[in-house]
């Protein structure tokens, strides 16, 4: 058996793994990526990116339906679900190819194979033709990601009960859908299918949708979705799925009563679990806890020379968190100066439904629970010129400050393009800005971003336009 030597071997070519590999190569390390499926991982092939393509189609369709609001006419807009899916797949394919080029450009060796840790600085790779090879590396980064969680009784079958995977490439347009789970994935699919005209029911076990978001934002989201005709059931649980020939009858328990809802398809979006099985962890001292790999501040595991980044190492399960962990880990390995652990309180989260939701830091409830004396600022889209001009008068920018220090504890936004704006607050948090720096920053007029400024002013009783 041949054995190849590397400085760094990354198992998994998702947004954590391929970014770590490129950074390692940039720093002069001989690097390899072992990827069993597609470069770019779930994010690029079956997650973030293709869903954004789908949602863009839905958004354009929505605008076509509202053409008259803008003085335009568009008679009987229609769509072809196959072509929408085709476009989405094309976007993924283009980007996945792009990653291949980036890795090549940076002289990263890519193994189209399945990787397993062997212990003692070795990784066994199994290629598609079942041949095996051993790679040895000073540093091994586990970036195997996560997959959809499966709850007993709600097992997806790929036909009537979908996961994100099938929901992303529907072979027909379902007339009705029930989505289990109202996290980012569930809500994005619910919004996509609702906008295209399906009857959509969302069932959430918690008492609000998008449970990680601020209560106020979650409430506004619910109102907006219900206004669009979505049916939302909270504190509700799907207890049974009764499968018909081409439909499913869902038994939903709410307040002790069971309601039966029959739909064409069910989408299970009840969270994700880390891919820790069959990657050779038993050959190492790597510890796992609650189904994920235990890591230190710089993603190091209990086995010297083995690191874990991204979803496999725990929440938040976000591509940008994985990429950052990868870069920090590699730069720490390379001994660069100014390398700091990831501050998880400064990671923004985005949901690309209509309306969009974006947030960073503590919710109002969590800030209070943490004992902060807080100042809360709010600015509604209704008060913003650009929002009115865009025909997007619904939404809110909410900011939460520590009254004592002026630290921005959290920012929560709902409405048009908020996912593109949240980075402004992220930069502020990273630079440890206080309310004064936000106030002293000049925001361009007319933009939606002016609402961020006004929200900060509002927290201190100084809002001008509302």
């Amino acid at each position, binding site marked *: 058996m041949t054995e190849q030597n590397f400085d760094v071997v990354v198992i998994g070519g998702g947004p954590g793994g391929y970014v770590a590999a490129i950074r390692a190569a940039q720093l002069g390390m001989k690097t390899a990526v072992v990827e069993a499926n597609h470069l770019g991982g779930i994010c690029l092939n079956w997650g973030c990116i293709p869903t954004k393509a789908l949602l863009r189609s839905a958004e354009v369709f929505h605008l076509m339906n509202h053409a008259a609001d803008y003085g335009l006419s568009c008679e009987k807009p229609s769509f072809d679900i196959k072509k929408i899916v085709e476009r989405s797949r094309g976007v993924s394919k283009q980007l996945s190819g792009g990653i291949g080029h980036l890795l090549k450009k940076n002289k990263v060796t890519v193994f189209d194979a399945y990787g397993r840790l062997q212990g003692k600085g070795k990784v066994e790779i199994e290629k598609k033709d079942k041949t095996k090879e051993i790679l040895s590396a000073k540093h091994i980064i586990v970036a195997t990601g996560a997959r959809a969680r499966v709850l007993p009784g709600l097992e997806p079958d790929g036909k009537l009960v979908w996961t994100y995977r099938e929901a992303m490439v529907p072979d027909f347009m379902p007339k009705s859908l029930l989505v289990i789970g109202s996290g980012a994935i569930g809500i994005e699919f619910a919004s996509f299918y609702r906008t295209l005209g399906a009857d959509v029911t969302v069932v959430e076990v918690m008492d609000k949708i998008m449970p990680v978001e601020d209560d106020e934002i979650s409430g506004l989201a619910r109102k907006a979705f219900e206004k669009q005709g979505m049916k939302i059931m909270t504190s509700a649980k799907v207890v049974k799925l009764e499968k018909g020939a081409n439909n499913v009858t869902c038994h939903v328990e709410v307040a002790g009563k069971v309601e039966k809802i029959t739909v064409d398809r069910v989408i299970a979006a009840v969270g994700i679990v880390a891919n820790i099985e069959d990657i050779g962890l038993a050959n190492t001292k790597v510890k796992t806890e609650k189904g994920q790999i235990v890591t230190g501040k710089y993603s190091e595991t209990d086995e010297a020379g083995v690191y874990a980044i991204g979803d496999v190492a725990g929440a938040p399960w976000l591509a940008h968190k994985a990429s950052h962990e990868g870069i920090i880990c590699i730069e720490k390995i390379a001994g660069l100066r100014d390398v700091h652990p990831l501050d998880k309180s400064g990671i923004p989260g985005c949901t690309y439904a209509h309306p969009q939701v974006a947030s960073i830091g503590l919710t109002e409830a969590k800030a209070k629970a943490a004992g902060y004396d807080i100042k809360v600022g709010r600015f509604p889209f209704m008060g913003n010129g650009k929002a009115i001009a865009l025909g997007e008068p619904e939404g809110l920018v909410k900011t939460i400050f520590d009254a004592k220090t*002026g630290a921005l504890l959290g920012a929560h936004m709902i409405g048009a393009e908020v996912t593109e704006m949240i980075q402004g607050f992220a930069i502020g948090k990273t*630079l*440890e*800005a206080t309310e004064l720096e936000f106030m002293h920053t000049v925001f361009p007029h007319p933009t939606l971003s002016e609402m961020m400024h006004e929200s900060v002013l509002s927290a201190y009783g100084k809002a001008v336009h509302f």
Partner: protein
Amino acid sequence: MPVNILMPALSPTMTEGTLAKWLKKEGDTVKAGEVIAEIETDKATMEVEAVDEGKLAKILIPAGTSNVAVNTAIAVLLEDGEDASALSAAPVAAIPSPQPSPEGRGSEGAKAAPSSPSALPPLPAGEGRGEGQRVFASPLARRIAEQKGLDLKSVKGTGPHGRIVKSDVENAKASGTTSAPKSSSALTSSGPDAKQLADMLGMEYTEIPNNNIKKVTARRLTEAKQTIPHFYLSVDCVLDKLLAARVAMNNAADGAYKLSVNDFIIKANAMALKAYPPANTSWTDDAVLQYKHADISIAVATPNGLITPIIKAAETKSLSEISNEMKDLAKRAKEGKLKPVEFQGGSFSISNLGMFGVKNFQAIVNPPQSCIMAVGAGEERVVVENGQMVVRTVMTVTLSTDHRSVDGAVGAEYLQHFKKFIENPVLMLA
């Protein structure tokens, strides 16, 4: 408009000082550049010069006041033609000082002139500003430090490029101006309290109050000896060639200079540091700093305590330049008139007790430097050369080093270089 005279910051690290003496009294006329007061800082006594011409109308801080924060108004100057009635309109201490001091920020002054918001306060007099050593800190870190009464200069930054971030100030202990002296006295006088013991046993004594120089020296030396892993290397140097060279050079000088053995020791160290930079260093957690120049601190005993003026870039200077500079520095050190830049910094130290006949001793490393050379007396000793006993003038030097940055082999190699130069002074011409 009356001008405030502010407590100047005489060094980048100075946050407060003692107003030792007023050389002018209220009512005196002062000219720009005239010395009006003396301020004792942690290291030296400094003169405060008037920047403007006028009449010293009011002294706000009496002589002998200690812990006067930098930028506190210490006196008010009336310009030509103004009389004392203008005083009430003087917004005292108009520029907010980093550490607000209760006195000298009279709110009644501000109240008296509410109708002139356009009259922005003048720039503070003299050195109070301008000695900018910028502290990089995040806005949030600045605010939390202010709330905790923490001096950012005492905080080590761990953010990008050493920027002070929130966690740094949260982790830093509040070491405000009042608590600092306490902690330093705790450090220097741990163990049984000598005064208590002496009183209890009825021992007779005179109390000689410690001035700032003594306090700071005590604190720094205690810290150095307790936290720096010291070790010591001694070597004997034959001085006969040096002494002959010295006589020849001084005879030829015609009064332009008069070289001492100490000048040769400074020069030989400068040349050795240039030839062998690993000894010219400071230890930091992240890296050893290797200095470009041999900035040599020379310990000088003064009536007020120990001070170490610096011959900067000594490797670029000739013996006569070193000699004349040293004479000037030593004289002013003894008068307490050194500027902070003349004794702060330095990359290598020399302490010479040879003139007292001390044969050899071990000095305490002068942080953050790595090395200090303790120089003993040059004395005639019997040495064996080629199997013969001969009499030579021999001097023992002992190098104390910080083992973290200068280990045994480095220290020993350094001494080889030094010995080569001191025993063959002609090589210093190369």
